[in-house]
């Protein structure tokens, strides 16, 4: 309880300082900090369309954040969410290519997750068999996935009538907005539910427990019959599941395109945003959830700040950087 309070206080302080420094930077550059913050933080909350848009942004970041968080639990620095998200999206596109009715939806979920898990199995197995550090493995696999998926989308899965993107999800297989005129689809509650499930998995399941033991002390794990290699596999697998889901949802549940862009513009960078969310949320699934909502609000707020005040988009990044820097300090821990 005390820890939680302290952690909240820390976050509050970090937020405060980051915003103060951000304000100074804006002021020096000739932009009005107060108006900027008002647009950035309040406008997204002032209108349901904007709020839902913010939530829609939080969903994929949350899912990729979970990938990283689960990895951390297992003592892994798994930065493969990026590539696995591409693979998830590719699976969805493959489903759209294969079937043209509602059955594309379950097929998309299946193929997307399967592709992502298969993709994550490569660095996982290389780590287990050949001792390849997961940082190298996942960075390389991310790039290979990048080019592979671009190639697939540019060739077999290209949309003949709109060649800059892949074939579209069949109408019947799309998850359309729950409220018309907004971006809120089933992806959002689904992602949040996943976070809760991951929490339950890590906290209560036997495998979650084994992952934690293996992650903190593989020697102990081994001595008492827990195979750390299995834990690595499971952690990679679960992580790929959420990352793959993120990719699938970006295709089946993100209006208006319901396809994968040839330059991967609707999945690119999600994995790295996820790391930010995971670190902000201190690796705790619920923390990651809150962090991703916050990041979603910032992303939504960025546009209103540009429109209402004319403050450039880059300030959001600067403030995010500062905020995270201050969070790294955990300034109040010593008290």
């Amino acid at each position, binding site marked *: 309880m005390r820890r939680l309070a302290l952690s909240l206080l820390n976050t509050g302080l970090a937020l405060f300082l980051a915003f103060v420094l951000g304000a100074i930077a804006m002021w020096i550059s000739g932009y009005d900090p107060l108006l900027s913050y008002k647009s950035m933080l309040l406008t997204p909350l002032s209108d349901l369309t904007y709020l839902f848009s913010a939530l829609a942004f939080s969903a994929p970041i949350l899912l990729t954040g979970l990938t990283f968080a689960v990895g951390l639990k297992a003592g892994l620095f798994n930065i493969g969410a990026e590539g696995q998200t591409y693979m998830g999206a590719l699976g969805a596109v493959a489903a759209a290519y294969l079937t043209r009715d509602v059955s594309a939806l379950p097929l998309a979920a299946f193929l997307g997750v399967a592709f992502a898990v298969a993709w994550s199995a490569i660095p996982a197995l290389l780590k287990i068999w050949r001792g390849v550090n997961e940082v190298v493995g996942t960075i390389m696999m991310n790039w290979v996935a990048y080019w592979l998926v671009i190639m697939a989308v540019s060739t077999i899965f290209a949309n003949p009538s709109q060649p800059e993107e892949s074939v579209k999800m069949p109408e019947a297989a799309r998850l359309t907005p729950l409220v018309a005129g907004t971006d809120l689809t089933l992806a959002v509650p689904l992602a949040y539910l996943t976070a809760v499930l991951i929490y339950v998995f890590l906290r*209560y*399941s*036997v495998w979650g*427990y084994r992952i934690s033991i293996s992650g*903190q002390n593989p020697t*102990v794990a*081994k*001595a*008492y019959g827990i195979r750390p290699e299995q834990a690595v596999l499971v952690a990679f697998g679960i992580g790929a599941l959420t990352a793959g889901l993120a990719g699938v949802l970006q295709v089946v549940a993100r209006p208006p395109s319901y396809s994968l862009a040839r330059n991967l513009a609707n999945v690119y960078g999600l994995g790295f945003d996820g790391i930010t969310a995971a670190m902000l949320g201190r690796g705790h699934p619920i923390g990651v959830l809150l962090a991703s909502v916050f990041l979603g609000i910032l992303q939504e707020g960025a546009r209103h700040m540009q429109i209402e005040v004319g403050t450039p988009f880059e300030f959001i990044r600067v403030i995010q950087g500062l905020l995270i820097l201050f969070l790294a300090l955990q300034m109040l821990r010593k008290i």
Partner: protein
Amino acid sequence: MKVSLREIRKVFSDGTHALRGVSLDVFPGEVLALLGENGAGKTTLMKILSGIYRPTSGEIYVDGRRVKPKNARDALKLGIAMVHQHLSLIPGLTALENVAVLEGASLSPVSTELRRRVEKIAEELGFEIEWDRDVEELPLGMRQRVEIVKALYWGAQLLILDEPTTVLSPPEVKSLFQVVKRLKEQGRSVVYITHKIPEVMEIADRVVVLRRGLKSAEFSPPYDAKRLVEAMVGEVKTEAVERLGKPGERPVLEVKDLWVYDGDRAVVQGVDLVVREREILAIVGVEGNGQEHLVETIVGVRKRSRGMIKIYGGYAYIPDDRQKKALVLEMSLVENAIIGKENEFAKRGLISWQQAERFTAKLIEEFGIVAPGPWSSARQLSGGNQQKLVVGRELSRGAKLIVAHQPTRGLDVATTEYVQTLLIKTRNAGVGVLLVTSDLDEAYKIADTIAVMYRGKIVAYGPVEEMGIELVGKKMAGL
């Protein structure tokens, strides 16, 4: 050099009162033994003297001059060096580099002069040390020797040895004592921390006993072993438990022609052994003769190269290093208590933490573990209590075989007694125990059968009655 400690108090950042005002003098050319039960504050006191911890209050004088060592190097400059209980060489560096760390930063390489002098000191002490190997690869005994050489190289006038003999064979102990005596002759002082009364009786010029952070008694020769123990732990209550009955027939562990390699070194070479029901088989030997590999291969942490291992009826495992091999220090007692038996607390794949907590509470109760609560982290326990947690967890596993590797290392007299009693009780209940120890007293006290391990081989094997201590000591030293 005369060193004086005055009214030293230490409160750790977590609120532990380790020392409550201890005063102590160490005179030149003196061997001072420091006794006390686990957690009495011996190590803390000496870490303060050697600059590792800062005292909360109190003063240190060297030859009457007030000093405030900021770190171990400061203390070393004053002539005070400490060889740690949990050895403190830096892994990833060679033995020589570990000595050279103290030379400070410079762009030049380690001087050949240093190497020569280091080798000379080692030679004088009769130490054989592989200077150019990563210390991680050295056996514990050799690491300790490196530490001693390091201390002497840097001109220690006062050498603190914290439980040094836990990792040595009897001949090695003997040579260590020689070293201590030689240092004494040179007019240097030694503070000798231990739990072993016979050692105290042999080499101490004076004994100081600490109890719960206070000096509780001081003795000079001739010593009365019983009074020493009483001063340490209050009154000694020994509930003597005897081994009952002969070992059974049915094996719980069979090992045949086992070979284990570490890199391309054969560290276990064709070991055969059998542990039967109601039998304690003690494998004795100096550490670093392959026991660790043998044990860890039996429990499946390491891979065997050749041979057969059969375990009947499951096993429990008490490793030699509780902090690294038995516990996850950052996790709670509850989480630690169910390692390896998490399935017993799970329904449909989900663990019931309530049930696990009840189980932990029972362990705490049954094994007298002193802990703030079941959800406090394992790190917060003292070493003795950590060990009790491990022993408790393992004994409650209900396995037919217990693999106990140095189960009483670093434990005080009372706790040692307690753990040994538990092992005998379990044995009496029909369980087989594979005890690996470097403490001969322990082996003779509780084992049915003794095997001596030397350079990866079992060089002697027989019922305890037939294995004379002389012979065993010789075999351990490879004679």
